[in-house]
């Protein structure tokens, strides 16, 4: 028995010593690596340029046939300060696609931003030019992103980030005053043209500057981590709207957010069809909300679940009526809603998952599901994105499912896929 105990004790001591020696060796190796690490110097650049190419295809819902797609893109962003108090910003994107997009143009250029920013003193700024102003803390639907209508000239991906990146701003004069824990921003965006122009290289002032608009937003930190943003928006063609953005940290891994806007307005159906059919006098207070939560695991998986509500969109009976009514009216409603980046129906669910370094380092896998709670149609989008040096390789797949003329069942593509290569200069 004593011999057994002695042998056991020896084994334990040997195990501990071996583990310590192993850890010591690993640390020695790590420090050797650090000794051999060369000095890296990398200066900040005032520009970012990438080129992108894609090959893809989709299955047409109408006849089940397939359609190949190809695209080449150039994206340029310059942020230059000739003087400390002056900043010049330029951002442009050119997409050359085959077949041509809905506008009939193969080459579509989007001047996203071009503006000058003056900073006379710390905390005071004045900007003039085309600016992409984007408000909203939600991912899949942004009721307070008041300037988003008609801003997308070329849709290259349905990913939320792509829709937010590849859009043009509005010409405006903007001023901002910042203080400790708060800020006040006011902007005025004038009417410069009457209607959008889809010619490929047009500045398209009529898309985002077709009426006078103004927006005031106020942020104030009331407590640590609690800084709501209040917005007041008005445009020539509608009554004022108010908005709110609020986030909260629920625990070390979970963030909740709410985005809300409200105002008196007719229904979207009335707004879309008023030139085609008699309109109702149905202006009422209507709310729009995106309520969500994002949870991140220790394995770098982030899941966002959102509930979307649009009080001006078609409820079940209105939606049924539109689907069963004349097709031109249905088409006009869909077109209006899509251009406004609004929900066509009253309620929806949105799930977005991003798994960084999924199974292998530098591989990011994303999943997005849009589920229409009114007609039960659904869109699923999956992307596998691999970063390698200055290259990004992405494989995207999309499936639209639903009954005829439902939200996603009416999409011209039943299924779509594309392989994208991006190179950063």
């Amino acid at each position: 028995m004593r011999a057994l105990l002695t042998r056991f004790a020896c084994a334990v001591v040997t195990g501990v010593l071996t583990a310590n020696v192993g850890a010591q060796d690993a640390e020695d190796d790590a420090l050797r690596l650090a000794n051999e690490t060369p000095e890296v110097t990398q200066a900040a650049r005032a520009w970012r340029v990438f080129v992108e190419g894609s090959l893809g295809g989709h299955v047409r819902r109408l006849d089940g046939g397939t359609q190949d797609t190809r695209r080449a893109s150039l994206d340029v962003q310059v942020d230059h300060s000739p003087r400390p108090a002056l900043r010049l910003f330029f951002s442009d994107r050119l997409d050359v696609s085959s077949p041509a997009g809905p506008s009939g143009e193969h080459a579509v250029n989007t001047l996203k931003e071009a503006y000058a920013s003056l900073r006379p003193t710390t905390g005071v700024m004045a900007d003039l030019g085309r600016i992409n102003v984007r408000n909203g803390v939600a991912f899949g639907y942004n009721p307070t992103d008041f300037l988003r209508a008609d801003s997308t000239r070329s849709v290259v991906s349905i990913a939320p980030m792509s829709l937010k990146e590849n859009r043009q701003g509005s010409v405006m004069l903007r001023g901002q005053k910042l203080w400790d824990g708060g800020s006040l921003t006011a902007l005025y965006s004038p009417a410069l043209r009457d209607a959008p122009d889809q010619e490929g290289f047009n500045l398209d002032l009529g898309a985002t500057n077709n009426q006078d608009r103004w927006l005031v937003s106020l942020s104030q930190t009331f407590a640590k981590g609690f800084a709501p943003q209040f917005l007041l928006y008005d445009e020539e063609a509608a009554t004022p709207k108010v908005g709110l953005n609020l986030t909260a940290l629920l625990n070390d891994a979970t963030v909740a957010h709410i985005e809300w806007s409200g105002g008196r307005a007719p229904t979207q159906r009335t707004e879309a069809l008023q030139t085609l059919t008699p309109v109702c006098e149905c202006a009422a207070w209507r709310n729009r909300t995106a309520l969500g939560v994002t949870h991140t695991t220790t394995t770098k998986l982030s899941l966002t679940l959102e509930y979307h509500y649009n009080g001006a969109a078609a409820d079940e009976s209105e939606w049924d009526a539109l689907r069963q009514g004349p097709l031109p009216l249905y088409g006009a409603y869909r077109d209006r809603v899509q251009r406004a980046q609004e929900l066509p129906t009253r309620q929806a669910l949105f799930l977005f998952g991003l798994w960084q370094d999924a199974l292998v380092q530098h591989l990011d896998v994303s999943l997005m599901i849009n589920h229409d709670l009114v007609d039960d149609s659904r869109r699923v989008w999956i992307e596998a994105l691999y970063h390698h040096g200055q290259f990004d390789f992405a494989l995207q797949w999309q499936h639209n499912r639903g009954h005829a003329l439902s939200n996603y069942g009416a999409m011209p593509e039943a299924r779509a896929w594309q392989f994208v290569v991006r190179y950063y200069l």
Partner: protein
Amino acid sequence: MRTLLTLVLLLVCLTTVPRISTARTPQDILVASDAVRNPDFPFGLTNTLIEYRKGKQTDSSVLAVYSRLDQGGGQFRSLVRYVAPARDANKLILFNGKDLWLFDPASKASVRISPQQRLLGQASNGDVVTVNFARDYRATEAVEEDTQDGNRQTRRCHKLNIAATTTDATYRRIEMWVDVVSARPVKARFYADSGKLMKTAYYRRYQKIFGVERPTEAVIIDGLEPDWVTVMRYSDWVKRDVPEAWLQRDYLPHFKPE
């Protein structure tokens, strides 16, 4: 003989009493080591991160970090701008305790993120910004012992046992070895709530920055996978104004360093 012994004892007492009276508490030592790592005024620096796995470089990032001590709380608030890689260039992260915001200039989107949302491979958000440990932790014990530093030299250190005292703390427990003479941090081990070793950090390449010898390199070794190593190098230190107005979400779209 008894008289001689009494004299010796008296001498020992006389020489030790002053040492006891001036002896620093474990928390004092932690405060002193914070002062070695961090200036007490607003400043900027470049943090270059190079990541290795199994001996091969797998990633690198360059960040510009702007930090300012929060007069109210005693902790640093930081604004971090990606310089490289190109795909992330000019993205911004605002660090204000656990109030974190990520801004992407391409989409103009400011997204609130949770502390668990790691943005830089192995390094946690708390690793890349300036942190005063003494603000969020309490050192409960200091034991003198010899340890090997990042250059494999033996150093006499205080081994501090450090426990989190605020919810802003990234780690539940830390062991830190601090040089008994210079108060330089030599190495630290960071533990999770479960008691598991998360990472070991060596503080190295001391250089005179703003009149004080400060570490300009941290070597971070993963607790579970010791061949996963991140070398963080700090350069381009500059004393600069970091206005309060910069450190809020609404400023991020306008941030442009001079």
